């Protein structure tokens, strides 16, 4: 197909193969005059830009020349410097040779002519650059005159030897493509002379002695050093002869196809099986010289093409210069020219002003391109696939980290002789060696069940305190009495507390409570703050509170009946009106009396009284007391200062029931997480570990940790698997099916294992129970990928909707209407196997994961400004209803080691009673820090 065209009667030269972009130089032809009879000469350089689909060439440089050109040639000389694009040599009349700097022409700089000589006699028609030494140029002119030029010294030429006799014009000179000191020249008489420059003489003359060869063209074989072709311009013998110098008495073969004399030949450097020729029969043919057959033919043109040239850089492309004054550029790969034809027609039309060139007011009708033209423009491509399109090597990845390779095993350049290998290699690629090592450790731990040691190892090798902490939490989850151990991890050991209380009681209660300010300045204990309080530790204060509840100074019974408060209370009591008595006590702020009376007055009154008491009494401790007494765990979780999350968690660990416990831990985690602070998010992870909520743990984790790298993913999966196992141990059944976020990571992890060839291991991580599409898809792929290794297992269900391709014999509704694949595509759903959760800004209110089993749907955490050390009263009825703490309810399975705290008000007693705890973790730390007023240990120090 035609790619480009330009109207020039000119000699042409392509830029060398290493030049980018591709240029074509044209120089006004010396042999032809157009109708203007102008003898002006121009040298032009055009960019051949195939990115631009139009037929136009872009002119990049132009220069008036002193001589018209018989031959133009472009070489790499001087290409060492970055801005250089080589030199163009023009052969003109009267023996003139001119050397141009391409760079200077393109940059429109002064003195583009960098050398000129008139050493030759007559027109210089033959030029060739040595392919090995870019400074060596051969030229041929009249009288058998051949010169070799060193462009570094352009004034003095050399000769290859004595002039051949008889003297005649040299039509072509050509350097051998393999041996750099061999040159040949072609003579109109039909002979070719091969020169050896080392010997400085002709070494062989090639001629078939028919005397009818009239050499117009000559070319060396691109790869076989001893072969060359000669073309004959004689109409009586319009042939191309192939010669081998090893057998120089007659041609090896003769390409016969042109009906009139051959004007030019060009041998494709990228594929020796492609030889172009143009002839006076107006045809351009491409031959396979080995087979002697025409493999491509350009449709007959109206004019002779006097020069064809392969583009050195783009092997599919050649240019043809014709006597009718056009240079056309074609591709041998075939294709349809219709589009271009049309643009050409449009261009012609548009060059007439607005389609109304004669100002008649009548618009020209659109030009109808004759159909005949459209038909002839469909040119079949080369019959023989060109070498440059034949991909000799290849590589492709396949599922399971397989690498498929094939191709050459011998060095390129020797392909002529080689037989092609027919093996394809399948290799296993493993790149993530450290990941695989750690993954195996985890697998072994999970299989052996010895996860405690695994956790202990992780604790010891943890680099970050947070990581160590996390592994401590995970480990404790695997142990018996996990709740009390968790408490200890939080810094609350029951034994230590008992010691402190004992010492406190024996030494007497401190006269004064330490002032909050004093404690705040205590930098060593910044994290010991209890719920909404920067004050003394709860337990100690609680005991003081109970002490204060003991009535004092009771002597003789005296029943006042006066009209003051005492009297009114007495009277009310006498009548059994506890409600009024309590009310009076409360009014007089005699809370102890009120409570005592309320106990006697029954459960309802007690509850009311407690409520009133807490409403009135606003000490730093009262919120805690009220929450504990009234079992408002949710208030604690929702309102506590986030810096005191550990204390809040401790309360949950101590008091809450299992059903509420996980939910409340999750709420606390959600609050921490919603702060968006990385540190608090890490704490949130601890809450989720405590609650055993794997999905939330993963959600929270991925927000603050990258998990795209294999080792980072491994970090996460280790935790997930250990936590999962602890839940399984507690529940005695397989853990819940993973939610979408976890499913994505699990799939990612299993995919990664699969990519390293560990198909069976990858399969193990995918829970069978899961109905997550991602997991089902990967299970299916892994199952079949393992071939016979899983032969005894049942294949998992195919996780896609099958589409039948081909003509369906029995009409099924699914295939009707031509929309089967699309319909199927929508059935597979808007799930995107590899689409991640980018926008996972955490919204606890959004019940977006309904598939998460065994979890509550988090309610919105009330937005409130949390100023540190300031008590915000609990908001009673926000959030889900916390379950009423029923007495004597069976303690949840989860809290295996703990005795139920039967009565809420007896929390302390309960703590004391259940203080036989294992001391495997942090006991030394906590005991060493035992101090009367400090029970809380910074968790980071564990």
């Amino acid at each position: 197909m035609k790619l480009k065209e330009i109207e020039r009667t000119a000699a042409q030269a392509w830029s060398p193969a290493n030049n980018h972009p591709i240029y074509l130089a044209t120089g006004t032809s010396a042999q032809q005059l157009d109708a203007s009879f102008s003898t002006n000469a121009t040298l032009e350089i055009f960019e051949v830009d195939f990115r631009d689909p139009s037929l136009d060439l872009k002119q990049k440089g132009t220069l008036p020349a002193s001589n018209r050109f018989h031959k133009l040639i472009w070489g790499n000389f001087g290409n060492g410097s970055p801005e250089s694009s080589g030199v163009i040599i023009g052969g003109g009349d009267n023996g003139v040779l001119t050397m141009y700097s391409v760079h200077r022409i393109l940059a429109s700089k002064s003195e583009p002519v960098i050398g000129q000589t008139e050493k030759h006699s007559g027109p210089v028609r033959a030029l060739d650059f040595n392919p090995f030494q870019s400074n060596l140029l051969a030229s041929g002119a009249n009288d058998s005159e051949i010169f070799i030029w060193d462009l570094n010294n352009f004034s003095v030429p050399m000769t290859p030897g004595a002039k051949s006799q008889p003297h005649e014009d040299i039509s072509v000179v050509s350097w051998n493509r393999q041996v750099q000191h061999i040159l040949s020249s072609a003579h109109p008489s039909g002979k070719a002379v091969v020169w050896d420059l080392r010997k400085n003489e002709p070494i062989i003359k090639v001629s078939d002695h028919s005397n009818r060869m009239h050499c117009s063209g000559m070319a060396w074989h691109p790869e076989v050093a001893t072969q060359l072709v000669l073309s004959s311009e004689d109409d009586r013998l319009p042939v191309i002869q192939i010669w081998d110098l090893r057998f120089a008495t007659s041609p090896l073969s003769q390409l016969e196809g042109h009906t009139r004399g051959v004007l030019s030949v060009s041998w494709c450097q990228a594929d020796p099986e492609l030889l172009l020729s143009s002839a006076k029969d107006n045809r351009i043919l491409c031959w396979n010289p080995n087979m002697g057959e025409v493999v491509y033919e350009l449709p007959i043109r109206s004019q002779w093409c006097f020069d064809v040239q392969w583009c050195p850089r783009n092997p599919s492309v050649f240019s043809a210069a014709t006597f009718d004054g056009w240079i056309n550029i074609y591709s041998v790969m075939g294709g349809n020219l219709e589009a271009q034809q049309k643009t050409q027609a449009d261009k012609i039309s548009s060059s007439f002003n607005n389609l109304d060139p004669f100002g008649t007011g009548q618009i020209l009708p659109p030009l109808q391109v004759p159909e005949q033209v459209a038909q002839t423009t469909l040119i079949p491509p080369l019959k023989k696939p060109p070498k440059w399109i034949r991909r000799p090597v290849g590589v492709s990845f396949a599922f399971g980290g397989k690498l498929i390779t094939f191709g050459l095993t011998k060095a390129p350049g020797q392909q002529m002789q080689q037989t092609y290998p027919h093996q394809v290699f399948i290799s296993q690629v493993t790149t993530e060696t450290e990941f695989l090592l750690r993954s195996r450790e985890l697998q072994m731990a999970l299989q052996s069940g010895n996860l405690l040691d695994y956790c202990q190892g992780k604790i010891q090798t943890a680099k970050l305190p947070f990581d160590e902490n996390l592994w401590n939490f995970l480990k404790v989850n695997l142990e018996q009495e996990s709740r009390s151990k968790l408490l200890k991890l939080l810094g609350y050991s029951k034994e230590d507390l008992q010691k402190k209380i004992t010492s406190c009681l024996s030494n007497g209660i401190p006269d004064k409570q330490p002032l909050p300010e004093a404690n705040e300045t205590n930098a060593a204990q910044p994290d010991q703050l209890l719920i909404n309080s920067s004050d003394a530790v709860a337990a100690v204060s609680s005991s003081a509170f109970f002490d204060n509840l003991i009535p004092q100074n009771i002597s003789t019974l005296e029943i006042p009946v006066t009209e003051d408060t005492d009297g009114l209370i007495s009277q009310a009591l006498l009548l059994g009106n506890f409600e009024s008595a309590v009310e009076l006590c409360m009014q007089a702020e005699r809370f102890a009396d009120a409570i005592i009376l309320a106990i006697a007055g029954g459960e309802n009154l007690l509850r009311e009284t407690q409520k009133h008491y807490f409403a009135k009494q606003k000490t730093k401790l009262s919120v805690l007391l009220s929450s504990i007494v009234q079992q408002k765990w949710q208030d604690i979780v929702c309102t506590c200062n986030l810096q005191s999350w550990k204390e809040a968690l401790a309360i949950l660990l101590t008091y809450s029931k299992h059903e509420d416990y996980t939910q409340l831990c999750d709420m606390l985690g959600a609050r921490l997480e919603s702060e968006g602070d990385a540190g608090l998010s890490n704490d949130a992870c601890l809450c989720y570990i405590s609650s055993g909520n794997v999905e939330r743990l993963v959600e929270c984790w991925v927000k603050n940790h990258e998990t795209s790298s294999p080792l980072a993913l491994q970090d996460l999966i280790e935790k997930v698997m250990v936590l999962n196992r602890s839940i399984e141990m507690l529940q005695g059944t397989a853990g819940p099916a993973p939610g979408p976020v976890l499913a994505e990571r699990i799939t990612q992890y299993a995919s990664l294992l699969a990519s390293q060839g560990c198909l069976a291991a990858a399969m193990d991580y995918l829970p069978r129970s899961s109905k997550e599409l991602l997991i089902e898809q990967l299970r299916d792929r892994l199952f079949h990928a393992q071939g016979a290794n899983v032969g005894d297992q049942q294949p998992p269900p195919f996780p896609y909707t099958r589409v039948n391709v081909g003509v369906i014999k029995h009409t099924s509704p699914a295939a009707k209407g031509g929309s089967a694949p699309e319909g199927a595509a929508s059935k597979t759903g808007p799930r995107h196997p590899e689409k991640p959760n980018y926008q996972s800004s955490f919204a606890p209110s959004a019940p977006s994961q309904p598939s998460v089993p065994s979890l509550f749907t988090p309610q919105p955490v009330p937005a409130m400004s949390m100023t540190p050390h300031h008590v915000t009263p609990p908001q009673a009825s926000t959030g889900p209803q916390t379950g009423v703490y029923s007495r004597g309810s069976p303690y949840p399975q989860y809290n295996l080691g703990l005795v139920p705290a039967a009565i809420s008000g007896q929390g302390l007693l309960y703590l004391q009673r259940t203080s036989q705890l294992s001391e495997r973790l942090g006991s030394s730390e906590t005991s060493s820090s035992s101090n009367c007023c400090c029970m809380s240990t910074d968790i980071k120090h564990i």
Partner: protein
Amino acid sequence: LPPQVSVINTVDTSHEDMIHDAQMDYYGTRLATCSSDRSVKIFDVRNGGQILIADLRGHEGPVWQVAWAHPMYGNILASCSYDRKVIVWKEENGTWEKTYEYTGHDSSVNSVCWAPHDYGLILACGSSDGAISLLSYTGDGQWEVKKISNAHTIGCNAVSWAPAVVPGSLIEQPSGQKPNYIKRFASGGCDNLVKIWKEEDGQWKEEQKLEAHSDWVRDVAWAPSIGLPTSTIASCSQDGRVFIWTCDDASGNSWSPKLLHKFNDVVWHVSWSITANILAVSGGDNKVTLWKESVDGLWACISDVNKGQGGVSAITEGQQNEQ
């Protein structure tokens, strides 16, 4: 420990001429090969075996590429050839047969690639006639053809689909409604360009023109999605260069190239691992190299596979500099 590449199976294809492509199916259990001997062969390679299960004859020229369709469409293989044809082969009850033949190109068909299975069964074909065809299966043995003419002047050498992406993908589509996929693919050609095509209102439009190569683009490979918002394309060229193109914005407008390496010979093929973190490069220098992006965004050669031996020479500092 250095990465390891070890040959686990050597398949003797008995092709009688140059092999041009070898592809495993979705599960990695079957190998399809094609050759200048005009045949397409399918081998069962499970568990290290190599059982020839089909020798498909139908092309009249060298077969350049083969492509497996997703298994939800059954056992489907597409092949393309210098004979200007695209053939879709199908297995039915153990027998492989031609189910569709497309003859709409005027020159060699150099590349075939199936779209993500979510879109339906769609095949993109790139040809030396400069056009790209999109063949969509519409049911009951019918195929619909869309053609992009003049996609690449002188010819298209490679096509590769983008992974399936839906805008705002977390928003669940109303049930029963077709997801609003943005369909894109990349192509590379003899105009030295990589182009990105996007479907808009059922029409394929040129969305981007990526210019960096100075010679024919031999292959393009759109990386599988690994859950990051970045799109990545690898391209290799006759000029010996391999570029990694990335685009971070969702609109798909700002692509930037990074030179992976300049080889001394033509680079014929690039292929991403399934997890998209490794790029395999195959060049005329008869070598296969594996490349991986480091944390700081630099691409490093992690192994150098010599074909036939399959062994890996660990890349030393000096070699890496040399490369």
